[in-house]
C-alpha cells in the first residue's frame, strides 16, 4: 500500500530549470514570493503571470502536477476568500441577511486568491525540478553563514538527508508490521475515529522501537566511517555555479526590480 508514494514531488525530466543550481532556484522562489506580496495593481499581477507561465513552460513539467499542490490549500483558499469578501468594510455592492459584500472585499479576495495560488505554484515549481538531495545541499550552502552564530547548519542538513533515506525503509516496515498485526487479528479499518486511532498503538510501538534501533545502528556505522560533523569534511558533489546560474541570478534581480518599480508606481 505504500509502494506508490513518491518522495517529495520531484518530476524527472531534462529542462533548463532542472539543471539550475538549487541555490538559484531557492533564492528565485523567495524573490518571487516577496514580489507577490509587493505588487498591488493589475499590471504587476499581469507581469507576475507572464513570468510564471514562462517558467512553467521552461520546466517541461505538466501543469497538472502543479494543480495537485493546489488541492492541499483549497480549504484555506475558500475560507480566506469568504472572510475577505464579507468582512472588508467599504463601498457596498449588495447585502443579504447579515452579510454585506463590498467592492473592496471582492478586490482583496481576488488578490489574496491569486497570491496564494501563485505562491503554491511557484514553490512547487522549485520542488518539482529539484531532487530532495539537491535541496538539502542547497539549503546547507545558503545557510552556511549561520554557522557563525552557532546554528548547526551541516548537522541539520545531514539529518534531513538521512530522514529522506529512511522514509521508504520505515514505510516498508510499517507495511510489514501492519500485515503481521492483521495476521494476528488486529483491525485497522473499522470502527469510529477514536477506536481507529487506538488500533494504531500496536502499530506505532514496534515501529518506534525499530526506528530507535536503526538510529543506533546507523550512528555506529557513521562513526565507524569516520563521521565527525562538518568540520574538515570535503564534498563529493560540491555546488559550483555555472554560467547559466549567473544569468538566472541576473534575471531574478531584474524581475524583482521591475516588481518593486510596479509596487512604487502602484500599477
Amino acid at each position, binding site marked *: 500500500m505504500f509502494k506508490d508514494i513518491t518522495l517529495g514531488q520531484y518530476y524527472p525530466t531534462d529542462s533548463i530549470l532542472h539543471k539550475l543550481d538549487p541555490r538559484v532556484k531557492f533564492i528565485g522562489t523567495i524573490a518571487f514570493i516577496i514580489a507577490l506580496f509587493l505588487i498591488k495593481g493589475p499590471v504587476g499581477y499581469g507581469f507576475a503571470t507572464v513570468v510564471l507561465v514562462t517558467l512553467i513552460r521552461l520546466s517541461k513539467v505538466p501543469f497538472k502536477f502543479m494543480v495537485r499542490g493546489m488541492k492541499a490549500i483549497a480549504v484555506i483558499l475558500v475560507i480566506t476568500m469568504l472572510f475577505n469578501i464579507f468582512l472588508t468594510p467599504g463601498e457596498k455592492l449588495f447585502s443579504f441577511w447579515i452579510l454585506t459584500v463590498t467592492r473592496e472585499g471582492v478586490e482583496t479576495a481576488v488578490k489574496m486568491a491569486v497570491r496564494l495560488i501563485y505562491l503554491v505554484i511557484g514553490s512547487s515549481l522549485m520542488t518539482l525540478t529539484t531532487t530532495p*538531495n539537491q535541496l538539502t545541499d542547497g539549503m546547507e550552502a545558503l545557510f552556511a553563514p549561520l554557522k557563525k552564530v552557532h546554528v548547526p547548519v551541516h548537522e541539520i542538513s545531514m539529518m534531513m538527508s538521512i530522514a529522506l533515506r529512511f522514509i521508504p*525503509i520505515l514505510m516498508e516496515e510499517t507495511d510489514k508490521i501492519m500485515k503481521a498485526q492483521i495476521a494476528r487479528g488486529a483491525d485497522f479499518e473499522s470502527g469510529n475515529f477514536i477506536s481507529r486511532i487506538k488500533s494504531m498503538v500496536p502499530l506505532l510501538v514496534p515501529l518506534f522501537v525499530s526506528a530507535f534501533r536503526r538510529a543506533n545502528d546507523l550512528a555506529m556505522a557513521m562513526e565507524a566511517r569516520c563521521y565527525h560533523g562538518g568540520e574538515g*569534511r570535503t564534498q563529493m558533489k560540491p555546488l559550483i555555479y555555472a554560467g547559466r546560474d549567473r544569468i538566472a541570478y541576473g534575471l531574478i534581480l531584474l524581475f524583482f526590480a521591475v516588481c518593486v518599480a510596479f509596487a512604487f508606481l502602484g500599477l
Partner: protein
Amino acid sequence: MGIIKAAKLAFDYIKYGDDDREAEKVRALDNVDLDVEKGQFIAILGHNGSGKSTLAKHINALLIPSEGTMWVDGIDTKSEEEIWHVRQKAGMVFQNPDNQIIGTVVEEDVGFGPENIGVPTQEIWRRVEDALTRVGMIAHRSKSPNKLSGGQKQRVAIAGVVAMRPECIILDEPTAMLDPDGRRDVIETVRELNEKEGVTAILITHYMEEVIFADRVIVMDGGRVVMQGTPREIFSRVEELKKLRLDVPQVTELAWELKKAGVPLADGILTREELVEALCSLN
C-alpha cells in the same frame, strides 16, 4: 608487530538495573590476546554472547578496552587524537545492510567515508569508481540503495569501506541477513579483496562454510579465546566445537560420523572433493 595486536584485552559492559542505581558490570571480553599479520584472512567463531562482536568493535575503536591494550597498525586505540586514523585503517561492515547505508544514491554512499576524512573532490570520484568496480557494483552506481538486494547492499557497504583505503576490513556477521546467493557474492568479494589487494580481513560469522578459506580461525566463548588454529586444526576437534554449541561444515560432520562408525578417515576434512578422494582411496 602485526597489523592488529591485542594484549590482555578486557571489556566490561555496564548494565543498569531498573532504578538506575544497581550498575552491574558484565565482562564481555576477558584476557584476549590477538596478533594478526598483514594480509591474513581471519575468521572469528562463537555463539551469541561470546564476545566476538565486542572484540570487532575494539578493532575499529568504537569501544575502548577497560583493561589491556589494542593496537591497530601500531596505534593504540585509546589515544583520542588518533581515533579517526584508526577508523580509517580498520573499516567495518555491519550485519544489517539497511542500517549502515547513509547516502540516497549508491555512489554518494561510497563517497561518504572519503568525504569524512577530507579527501579532495576529484580523488573521491576516483576512489568511488575504483571501489565500486572492485566489488562489482559499478553498474548500479546511480541507483537508490532501496532498490538493491541485501547482498548488493552489503557489497555497497564494503565498497564504502574500500574507498577509505583501509589496511584491514572487519566484517561483523555481514551475511546473517542475506539469502544464499547474496551470501556467496559477499564472501567472494571479501576473499577477492584479501587475495588480490592484500587487505587484511577479519570475518565474524555463524556459517561454517565461510570459514574454511580462512588462514586462521579463532573460536570465542564467554569473552575468551578458547581455540585458535587453521580451519583444518579447528574442525578436527568436532566434539569440542559441539560442546561450545558450534556446528562444523556438513562435509566435516559427515566424515566425522563415518569415522565414528568405523570408516578409517583422516581428521578435519573440509571440502566435498577431499571427502570424495578420501573415500575413493579407501579400497
